[in-house]
């Protein structure tokens, strides 16, 4: 799993640098998210702009990060989701579970 991690506006921004999240790399994503949750209490923003494809295990990895963030009174936000990927959140109703923003600036604005 290739990604970039930056601290921006008091948020941990994780930019996924993969076109595809599936059972081959979702475990690595889950591990990374759980580590971020452990490390601090800044909001975690996951940028999904480059992701063209996600499967159920990828959704599961994001959900696991989200749940763990809630346990630690933190939060995990998703931004820049491509429409076909967003459809997968809709079919599983996970769009009602996650905080989803169109752009990272909208996500920043919502934190202040």
């Amino acid at each position, binding site marked *: 799993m290739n990604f970039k991690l930056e601290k921006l506006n008091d948020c941990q921004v994780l930019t996924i640098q993969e076109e595809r999240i599936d059972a081959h790399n979702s475990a690595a994503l889950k591990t990374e998210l759980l580590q971020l949750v452990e490390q601090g209490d800044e909001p975690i923003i996951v940028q999904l702009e480059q992701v063209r494809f996600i499967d159920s295990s990828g959704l599961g990895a994001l959900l696991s990060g989200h749940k763990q963030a809630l346990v630690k009174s933190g939060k995990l936000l998703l931004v820049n989701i491509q429409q076909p990927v967003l459809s997968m959140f809709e079919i*599983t109703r996970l769009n009602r579970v996650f905080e989803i923003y169109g752009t990272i600036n909208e996500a920043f604005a919502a934190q202040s």
Partner: protein
Amino acid sequence: MSPAIIQVDVIIPTQTRYLDLIGSIGEHIAKEVDSYAGDREALAYHLNLVLTEATANAIKHAHDKEAKDTVRICIHIEEKQLTIKVYDHGQGFDLEAVAKPDFDHPKENGMGLFFIKTLMDSVTYTQQADGNVLEIIKYL
């Protein structure tokens, strides 16, 4: 013109790194289905997803340590129907007993078969002495 028939038969090792190959083949096939009137981009994603989920299940849940460590996937297209078969040599399971996800209490697992059932027209799982097969049909 006779009805176009495409058949793709793939054998891969039981390793998740090959999911991309299987999914991509599905995506390309969707672009060649000329009879399809619906959204072709959506069909491409759906075939990619369904092949990925079904193959991942065969790798995760039906890994037979003794037999050869391979998964076989067959894709067959006739004019009005696309059939996917994913074979496994595991202990099998009861497809009918698999519950729908609880949307009010979402869980990390258990969304794969839900995607397959939601996006395709028919799904069956048959256990046989020489192996099991998940058969998925999509009408075109």
